[in-house]
């Protein structure tokens, strides 16, 4: 059985729903329970929402991944927006520039097992998160 993969361009809220939907199908196929599926959906929502708020458009890639002795899901959220000027600050709990509550990056990190971020001012941001079954 080949690993599933989905690419979802993000340009409005309907795309966030589509990304969540794809995330749920793949995470269910990976063998995640309902609670973990919910965690993954919430994380996808946050990443996709960040794209809309800060970069306006971008792409979410969702795929099944295998590593030595483990199986899971990987979500990559990529945009060519302004990038994050102060990454340390953005990763600090309680920091928000979007205004108001939003789980933001620290919240997303907490929901998943692995979290990586690459950002360059003026070039964009790529966030990669993984969760293992």
């Amino acid at each position: 059985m080949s690993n599933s993969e989905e690419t979802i361009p993000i340009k409005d809220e309907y795309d966030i729903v589509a990304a969540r939907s794809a995330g749920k199908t793949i995470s269910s196929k990976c063998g995640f329970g309902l609670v973990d599926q919910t965690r993954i959906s919430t994380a996808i929502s946050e990443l996709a929402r960040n794209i809309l708020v800060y970069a306006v458009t971008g792409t979410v890639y969702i795929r099944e991944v295998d590593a030595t002795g483990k199986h899971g899901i990987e979500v990559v959220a990529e945009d060519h927006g302004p990038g994050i000027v102060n990454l340390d600050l953005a990763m600090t709990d309680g920091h928000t520039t979007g205004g108001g509550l939003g789980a933001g990056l620290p919240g997303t990190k907490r929901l998943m097992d692995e979290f990586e971020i690459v950002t360059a001012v003026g070039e964009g941001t790529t966030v990669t998160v993984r969760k293992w079954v």
Partner: protein
Amino acid sequence: MTHESELREKYSELLRGFLESRDERCLYDIENISKEFVRANIGPDYILEAHLNTLNEIISETPVDKAVQVYNNASEPIFNLMVAYATAYHDYIAMTEERYLREKRLADELNDANRNQEMFISIMSHDIRNPLSAVVGYSGLIQKRSKDNEKIKRFAEKIEKTAMEIDRMIESIRTYSRVKKGISEEDFDEIDLKTTLSEIFEFLDEKIQVHGTKIEKRYRTDGEYMVLGTEFLKNAYLNIIDNAIKYSPKNSMISITLDDAETDWKFGVADHGDGISNEMKEAVFERFTRNDKRGIKGSGIGLAITKHAIESHGGKVWIADNPGGGCIFYITVPKA
């Protein structure tokens, strides 16, 4: 409808919508509404109650053979709500802590700054006043011993007067710092403004004579004008009247009024000086601003003290133009 019941209603609708259509959009909206719950400070128990009530309603309308399926499907929306709620709540706590720490840091800094300022003022006034008393003392001696040398006598007199002027300035800076620090509750006493004004005119009598100022008093009633006041408030009235005399031409008329203004007593002093331009009407109450008057002595903080003192008594002070030329200072203070 309250915000609480509105959100509850919205959630019920979304739950129904999801159970009918299994549409992912409903889950996404539920995720968003969970942030609203956090913002509105609505607890998870309340949400769970709303969830169960709605679910029971739906189940009661559902054929028995499908009820179990509906029940199972309903766990997904509530999981979504709870995960999003918890994530947003975590953020909320972190934000509140961050804000608390920031505010505490600012408050500490402000306290330090205020303490330093007070300390500085008390050290400064002490350290300057000591040598100043030597200046006053020795210039007095020079005046006494200079016998027939009128010129030296006059110079020594000038030195003495200037030193006294500096002393008064230091005193007013000290008063300013004390008024700013706030007046404690024990200082308040019931005082009658009419009596206060008589005392002030008695105190200023010599100045009024020298200046040839004529005082016209128009009080609304003959009764008492009671307010809750302190020495600072009495000084505020004194300062305003003293200013009116100081800035008026010699032999001119000053009108004093006391009126009933609903909850307040309204005091006015109208002079026939040069008046104060509109852009200066508020600025004169700032520290070290003076309506340009050469040859008139003052530290430039008298009106700042006056304003702080009046406001500490729940009152107001402002300036209007006198239709007959000059200006009118008004003070209102709540009746006791």
